[in-house]
């Protein structure tokens, strides 16, 4: 009895110490806090968010859906929203299997978690903070989705806003709670992935069978309350509360080894993100999810593949396409999860394309974004070469040509991803012939644009700490260039879906398929321009540098003759 009392007293003292520690750190951080700057940041954020909402609302349009379509949305909506939430839960469970989602500072791991303070006491606050942040972020995103739904569906504005915020504010922390439960109970990588797949499959079954049985579909039902209130949605709220409580209760069992690894990697990812170094973020994120190249390749690159144009008996001929061959060697070692992710992204792009065709224009950005992210995976062989510049120095060929050749295998992979998207679109539309036809028109430009966007991102690399080009530009132009570096790569990928947008407006005598095919050439032109940029980038930079040096030399005053006055 005395031992228990002593332990409780130590836990209370520990909690007070940890609270004091956090207070002291917060006080130190806020010593240099500039109120004016904080107000300015809030103001800028509000302006940017306001513009984003205004633009998105405008893109969605004000045209209300007809009664029949609204009824269909009320009937099928919970399953569709539930499938998206189920996918989010699956991601959370998978992360939990790898020790996520808690991110603890490296110093906290060393000083707090290695002290005799009970892990439950040490970790409850960071876990609560993460749930709180997830709820706030989810509520914000949900409210935005509710706002967009209100523009087209019947129902009051406050109802859509509140239900959207409620679903988002519950779904994200529920996913985090599930992840904490899995990591705290040490379910492991395979167990976490299996649970995630099961939860996603459950939602998919609901979607296919038009039933409401999974917790994710229950939550999806809440999202559609402004159209049709059903009590079953409350079950989703209850499941969310249980998942969060269970996550908090399990958090003490989290692996310290995983916590330390995550502390280090997440810190590096945040630093890379502040430097806008996307490639480093991608590589570190793979390390975080322990995504390693396969020891045994999926397939051996045959000589006939290495030398696809002339199948001759000479063994030496296989050496004629080393870059092409190197690309396939890299792809053959992709982990299975990367192929799966690319297939899912292709499916997302396909499903979004159907929604875009049917009038939900903003999903055009999601489709392009999905192909961009898939492109970042597919372009890995080229990225590996760019990551090792010393190797480039040993090559005799021009860098631009080598880079373009390196894109070949990645394009083949991305075409396969696009085919998954087409198959998804056909499945979503119940095998509509139009989906096949438009899909086949869009597949190649979407795949090429995805590779094009990813190639720009990889080739341009992280912004240099000091750029001689930026130094010569006026500040306004340098700022615009910095924004372009971020916006252009995904924008190129999004352009790949312009044919879907155009297909919505067939004119007299031109079918939807014909309209889509009509803009394929301009899209391919954009991709070709990306290719030219890759091919001649180094030469253009060298020319620019030489021109600037020449100009500087010309501006210098002539040397004063020795001994002159």
């Amino acid at each position: 009895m005395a031992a228990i009392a002593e332990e409780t007293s130590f836990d209370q003292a520990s909690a007070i110490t940890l609270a004091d520690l956090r207070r002291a750190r917060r006080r130190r951080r806020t010593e240099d806090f500039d109120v004016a700057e904080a107000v300015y940041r809030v103001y800028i954020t509000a302006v940017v968010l306001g513009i984003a909402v205004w633009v998105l609302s405008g893109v969605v349009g004000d045209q209300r859906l007809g009664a029949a379509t609204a009824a269909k949305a009320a009937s099928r909506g919970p399953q569709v929203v539930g499938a998206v939430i189920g996918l989010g839960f699956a991601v959370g469970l998978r992360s939990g299997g790898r020790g996520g989602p808690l991110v603890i500072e490296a110093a906290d791991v060393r000083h707090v978690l290695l002290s005799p303070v009970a892990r439950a006491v040490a970790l409850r606050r960071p876990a609560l903070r993460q749930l709180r942040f997830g709820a706030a972020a989810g509520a914000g995103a949900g409210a935005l989705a509710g706002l967009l739904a209100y523009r087209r569906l019947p129902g009051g504005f406050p109802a859509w806003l509140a239900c959207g915020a409620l679903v988002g504010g519950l779904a994200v922390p529920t996913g985090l709670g599930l992840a904490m439960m899995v990591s705290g109970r040490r379910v492991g990588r395979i167990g976490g992935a299996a649970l995630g797949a099961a939860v996603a499959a459950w939602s998919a079954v609901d979607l296919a069978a038009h039933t409401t049985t999974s917790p994710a579909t229950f939550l999806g039902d809440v999202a559609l309350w402004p159209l049709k209130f059903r009590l079953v949605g409350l079950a989703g709220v209850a499941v969310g509360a249980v998942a969060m409580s269970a996550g908090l209760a399990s958090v003490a069992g989290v692996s310290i080894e995983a916590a330390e690894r995550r502390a280090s990697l997440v810190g590096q990812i945040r630093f890379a993100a502040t430097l806008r170094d996307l490639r480093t973020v991608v590589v570190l994120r793979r390390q975080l999810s322990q995504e390693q190249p396969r020891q045994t390749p999926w397939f051996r690159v045959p000589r006939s593949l290495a030398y696809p144009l002339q199948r001759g008996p000479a063994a030496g001929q296989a050496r004629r396409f080393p870059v092409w061959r190197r690309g396939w060697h890299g792809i053959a070692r992709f982990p299975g999860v990367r192929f799966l992710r690319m297939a899912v992204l292709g499916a997302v792009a396909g499903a979004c394309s159907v929604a875009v065709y049917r009038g939900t224009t903003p999903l055009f950005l999601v489709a392009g974004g999905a192909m961009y992210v898939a492109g970042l995976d597919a372009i890995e062989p080229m990225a590996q070469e760019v990551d090792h510049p010393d190797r480039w120095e040993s090559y005799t060929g021009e860098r631009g040509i080598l880079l373009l050749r390196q894109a070949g295998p990645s394009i083949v992979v991305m075409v396969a991803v696009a085919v998954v998207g087409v198959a998804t679109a056909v499945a979503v539309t119940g095998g509509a012939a139009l989906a096949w036809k438009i899909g086949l028109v869009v597949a190649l430009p979407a795949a090429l644009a995805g590779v094009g966007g990813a190639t720009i991102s990889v080739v341009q690399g992280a912004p240099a700490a000091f750029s001689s080009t930026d130094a010569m530009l006026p500040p306004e132009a340098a700022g615009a260039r910095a924004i372009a570096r971020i916006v252009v790569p995904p924008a190129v990928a999004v352009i790949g879906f312009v044919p879907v947008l155009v297909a919505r407006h067939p004119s007299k005598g031109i079918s939807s398929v014909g309209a889509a095919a009509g803009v394929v050439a301009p899209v391919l032109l954009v991709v070709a321009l990306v290719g030219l940029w890759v091919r001649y980038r180094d030469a253009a930079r060298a020319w620019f540098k030489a021109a600037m040096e020449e100009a500087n030399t010309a501006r210098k005053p002539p040397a004063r003759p020795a001994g002159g006055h």
Partner: protein
Amino acid sequence: MATPNQPHALATSGLTKAYGDLVALEPVDLVVPDGQRLVLVGHNGSGKTTLLRMAAGLLEPSDGSVEIFGAPAGSDDARAALSYLPDSPVLYDDLSVLEHIEYTCRLHDAEDWEDRAVGLLTDLGLTERADDLPSRFSRGLRQKTAIVLALIRPFGLLLVDEPFVGLDPPGRDAFIELMDDAAAAGATVVVATHQMEYVAKVDRCVALRDGAVVYDGPPGDVDVLTLVG
């Protein structure tokens, strides 16, 4: 020294660590009696840090077990009894040296720590920097701060990983003296190091090569350098 009823300071049984196909530490059976001074030697990648981190509870064994004074590594009791000084100091960027000391002592329920803190800061030449943020320190000063934090709290077993990296000669001498004081006060001290001069000062030497123990005995009996390659 440990009596028959008293658990050993550190005891491993078939302790193994593997990362996929790569075996970082082969099954290790090691018993370190209470009060002993032991040094771990071996080349880079031999498994010294892996062994220490598993004892500290930072790494989970792939197989086998490790106990600290009879308690499983990583448990509350083991954490209370063990102080781990890692090879690279990890400190809060927004706490001064004194604040680090205060919170470390409170987290470990240390009593009457103020006088000891003054002594440690003086010994390591940190008195003038006590109110400064370690984030502005050099590698050596950060290492000294970490040493203070490792020694200020109560412990029965001190695990030290490559302690001399970044330390100037006076700092190194001061730290060796502080470890001697800890051992004289009854603590068990386990040090992983490449510094062969330190090996002669301890009771026992364990040499590791490619994750396996290749020597375990008095430090003067063999040429350790040839053993570890």
